[in-house]
């Protein structure tokens, strides 16, 4: 539980029987860019272009429920944005985190609403508050802030008192 492992190959080897890792290494070689096992939670960094395929793969492997999608702004570190997907398996009683790293120059990821429609509001929220676009999203509009609002409040470089 307490061990922290940030070495990709070591994590993948130690959790080779993990259903998601097994399915991803078998069906989507190269999709896993990095792996981390920390405080009992598995985080797989997925290549940006493979996120839909990765979600479909783990969905087929029994991870049936998308619990949450959110974003972390690592400004000024590049790649700046980390989109985090929390996926749950009702059958395996297991959680899994996907992370997709997004560059500031082209802040966009493919939308996974086709895999889990639940992602709809979450992706809109990230678009609204972080300015990360989701390609293929059916209704990518602001959700929290007013339509005519400028800026993305949850970005780290957003002035908390607003633009002047």
């Amino acid at each position, binding site marked *: 539980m307490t061990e*922290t492992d940030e070495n990709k190959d070591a994590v993948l080897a130690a959790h080779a029987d993990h259903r998601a890792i097994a399915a991803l290494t078998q069906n989507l070689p190269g999709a896993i860019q990095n792996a981390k096992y920390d405080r009992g939670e598995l*985080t797989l960094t997925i290549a940006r272009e493979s996120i839909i395929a990765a979600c479909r793969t783990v969905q087929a492997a029994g991870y049936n429920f998308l619990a949450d999608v959110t974003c972390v702004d690592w400004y000024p570190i590049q790649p700046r944005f980390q989109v*985090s997907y929390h996926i749950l398996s009702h059958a395996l*009683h297991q959680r899994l985190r996907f992370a997709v790293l997004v560059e500031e120059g082209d802040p966009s990821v493919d939308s996974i609403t086709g895999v889990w*429609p*639940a992602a709809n509001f979450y992706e809109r929220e990230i678009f609204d508050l972080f300015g990360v676009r989701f390609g293929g999203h059916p209704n990518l509009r602001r959700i929290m802030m*007013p339509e005519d609002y400028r800026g993305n*409040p949850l970005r780290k470089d*957003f002035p908390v008192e607003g633009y002047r």
Partner: protein
Amino acid sequence: MGNLMTAPIAVDSTEDRTMILNMGPQHPSTHGVLRLVLEIDGEVVVRVSPDIGFLHTGIEKTCEAKFYQQVVPLTDRLDYCSPMHNNLCYCLAVEKLLQLEIPERAQWMRVLLSELTRLNSHLIWLGTHAMDIGALTVFLYCFREREQILRLFDDLAGQRMMMSYIRIGGLALEPPLDFFPRVRAFLKTLPEKIDEYENLLTGNPIFINRLKGVGLLSREDAIALGVTGPPLRASGVDWDLRRDMPYSGYEKFQFRVPVSTDCDVWARYVLRVQEMREAVKIANQALDGMPEGPIKANAPKIVLPDREAMKTQMEALIHHFKIVTEGFGVPAGEVYQAIESSRGEMGYYVVSDGTAKPYRVHMRNPTFATLQAIEKMCVGRLIADVVAAIGSIDIVLGEIDR
């Protein structure tokens, strides 16, 4: 959020025969400030678009400017019907980051308070849901019992609604001496009171006709749309985090998870009432088995010392001063901690960069996802059924908009 004059949602009807009806944000049955743009054909709903964000206060952003311990009061303000669930979930997440061991008494107290909070929240839901349907009496009955719970909380934490009683590393205070007998007396009377509500509602033909077969949500849709909690279980998915991924010692308690395959508003009503009865059982078990011992973890650099110790021991005073003025560093990492709140899966995603302030706090609130299912529940039904469907997902706009 939309400026009402330049509404972001297409306010033109898609066909000649349909019209657009704005429901909310001031409509009483939208439980706060939810705006639903309904496209209706006569009285039949063709399309529903929820418009949220009217209550957005940027709590996630505010969290990034506070010390870890200062975030606890903010979490109260998300879901004002079940503040302790938010306290608990946030504290569990930070404790997971810190790898902090919580004493058993604190864990049992957390379970007890969690179930009292569930009762509190379900009482509000039952009262307002019945009122939306037109049964006004139940509202008064439910608030009568809820008042007793609030008085217990007041006794415990000095606050009726925003308790901030669950803290990182344990609890704020030792409960007062008469707290347990009072909770026990309250729990003893509650099952009769629940019978009373059921007498008014469960056999009531008007209530049944308004709820049965309304707001249908299939099992597949419920999973695909991220629905959790009672609506998920009412769609036939046997899933309760308290039992299936236990936290805070829930694995030591015996309780039943009611599940239904009816998929309608009625099933959600029945399940929540049964859940209230189960919550009474869990709370009684917590009272019976309440262990003795400390209520705070042994971590002087994280948990504030007792007042007595702070006034008499120099080290405790130093720790107190350091925690209040500088906070405490939390090892870098990211955790997602979920609990079964009264509305479903509540999750806190906390990212630490090693400093005394959280780098990012994200709340996964159950009704934010469940609200996406409102269209599936309402299309093809009457406008009056929209009111029943909203009531059945038990929305709290504070946690949706954050």
